[in-house]
């Protein structure tokens, strides 16, 4: 009984120690950011402008997101949207080239990955939608800024978004999700991908080096546009907490004010896919751990039980 009391004291001190250096310390070290559940209504954007005492900007953002909400209520015509989408295809295609700093994303699964509200906002004003308008004196200078002039009609925007949601959806693999949403800026060397996609294997070193140069050229363009080369995301899943990733992807400004990373507008389902891929690459032992863990622990429970019986037999008659 006395031993159990001593064990209790040791256990309590150990747990208090753990609480202090882990959950408590981390709660104090990182500012708490409230997510918005991957709903894009400009709430955080307006709040940020207000906190920075930029009233005019806050008003502009309020008007912008109110407008987005209005468009989202318009019923879009998928067939008309398909015609409108022709405007997009000039830039958004498989194997696209760098335009103004980045390669325009492939939109094959846009409807499955991105939120409808975000897509509307993006067509209305890309810099405002992705909450990086602080980077542009005039949001028209955003690489996709000219879309504002090309697609100004609310009905047309509603049509194109309706088309994306209906026809550019379907099953999307975790890798496709990551590639379409993240990989034109972020390399993932543990998955052997760069800003130019999967790294091919070449027979001759000359070709390997030539590809490497292409990658460096592309990275330099991204670097010039973003201010620094966006980090490789191979094991970002272990370098950042779950909550950080979620709120950061939803609104990068919330965690890193002033960052040049745009909001990419993933829906909740879209983020789940991207998250799953980052886990596959960054934490590949997860399935093996879950497989082996119970067996090892069961082994030691049996081991301890047998050890207890041995101890009992050995100490018999000692007291």
């Amino acid at each position, binding site marked *: 009984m006395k031993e159990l009391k001593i064990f209790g004291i040791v256990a309590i001190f150990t747990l208090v120690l753990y609480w202090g250096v882990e959950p408590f310390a981390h709660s*104090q070290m990182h500012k708490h950011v409230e997510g918005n559940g991957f709903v894009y209504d400009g709430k955080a954007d307006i709040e940020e402008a207000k906190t920075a005492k930029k009233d005019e900007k806050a008003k502009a953002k309020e008007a912008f997101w109110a407008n987005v909400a209005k468009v989202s209520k318009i019923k879009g015509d998928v067939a008309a949207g398909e015609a409108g989408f022709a405007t997009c295809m000039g830039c958004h295609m498989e194997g696209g080239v760098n335009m103004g700093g980045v390669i325009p994303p492939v939109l094959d699964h846009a409807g499955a990955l991105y939120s409808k509200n975000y897509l509307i906002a993006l067509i209305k004003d890309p810099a405002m939608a992705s909450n990086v308008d602080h980077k542009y004196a005039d949001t028209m200078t955003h690489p996709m800024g000219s879309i504002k002039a090309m697609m100004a009609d609310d009905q047309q925007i509603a049509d194109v978004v309706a088309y994306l949601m209906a026809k550019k959806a379907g099953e999307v693999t975790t890798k496709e999700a990551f590639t379409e949403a993240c990989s034109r800026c972020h390399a993932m060397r543990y998955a052997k991908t760069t800003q130019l996609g999967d790294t091919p294997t070449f027979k001759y070193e000359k070709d390997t080096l030539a590809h490497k140069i292409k990658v460096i050229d592309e990275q330099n363009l991204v670097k010039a546009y973003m201010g620094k080369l966006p980090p490789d995301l191979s094991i970002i899943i272990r370098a950042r907490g779950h909550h950080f990733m979620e709120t950061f992807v939803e609104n990068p400004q919330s965690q890193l004010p002033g960052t040049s990373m745009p909001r990419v507008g993933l829906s909740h389902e879209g983020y789940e896919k991207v998250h799953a891929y980052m886990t596959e690459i960054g934490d590949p032992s997860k399935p093996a751990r879950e497989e082996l863990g119970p067996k090892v622990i069961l082994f030691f429970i049996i081991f301890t039980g047998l050890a207890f019986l041995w101890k009992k037999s050995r100490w018999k008659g*000692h007291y």
Partner: protein
Amino acid sequence: MAHFEKANSIGEWLDQRLAVETLKKVMQTEYWIPKNINFLWAMGMVLAATFGILVVSGIFLLMYYKPDTNLAFDSVNYTIMSEVGYGWLWRHVHGVGASLVFLIIYIHMFTGIYYGSYKKGRELIWLSGMGLFVAFSAEAFSGYMLPWGQMSYWAGMVITNLFSGGSLEAYGLVEWIRGDYVPADAFLTRFFMLHVFLLPLVIIGLIVLHFGTLRIPHVNNQDGEEFDYAEAAELYKAGKVKESKVIPFSPVFLSKDVFVMGVYFILFFYLVFYHFEFAMDPVNFDPADGLKTPAHIYPEWYFLWSYEILRPFSKDLGLVAFAIAQVIFFMLPFLDRSPNVAPASRRGLFKYWFWAMLIDVIVLTFMGKLPPTDALFANIGLVSAILFFVLWIALPFITKIEKKL
């Protein structure tokens, strides 16, 4: 040469040449341990087992680790984690083991302080044990450099900077330790050497010494009772195990050790499989970048209390305080002036000293990780750091006036 008879068994053959029977008696069946002990007496063997696990897992990791600033990070995070079969298991075992070994060291240390196991005759047990603590600390620090992540780099930067001696500005010494102006390749390879060769060697040597120092004074017991071991041993050998105050190390003491180890291993592997993050700081999963200081730099939890003694003071005072804190525990047998070998609960003021010291070290540990920019935390840290020294200064006085039991 000595005369050898023909042996009738392998055991006998070995006994003729190595005296294994005598060895077995001396080290196991007639190595007498007091009976009046609790599970805390098993911490020594738990530590030995944990060290064994660290060595074995370390050997497996060593086969794939590449000590080169360009390769180290990926050899740990990609090669070992993705390509080597069960590499992740060995890495997580090594990481969790490195953290838990300090938890057990601290429990072991505070057990020794509580029961007065460092008193007259047992000073060398305490000193060699403290030597082990320092060697394990160096081992932990050098190992922390190896994945070459952000925390490796910046912890290396901060700790080696301490050697500039504050206002002494001994940057030459810092460069000599680093082998470069900043932590770089020369820094990584020398810490690699220390981690996988020199320090483990020192640790093994100190473990042997630590065991050796136990032999003559014998292990302490729950009441600090002094008794005649020879007499108690005779009683035991005569079959009066109930009356005897001792038990043989093997198999009686060992059977309890193994049971305690079993309980410990359940916790150990629970952490390895389901809760390893606490031992592997997320910041260290970002590759080392000398141009990007992390928002918070803090050591692993087991160094936090001494880090917090460094932080709240001015530069030079902080360094002096830090240096004293590193060695003050060595002085315990000499600062404790009371001859009483007894649990702290029976020792008057020392009882309060013990709990105050334990709680103070835990509070320092908490504060060591919190951002010093928060005034409340900074003040709690300062008060705890001052209390740490007040307690050590008070120790000789309160033990001097302690009543002899």
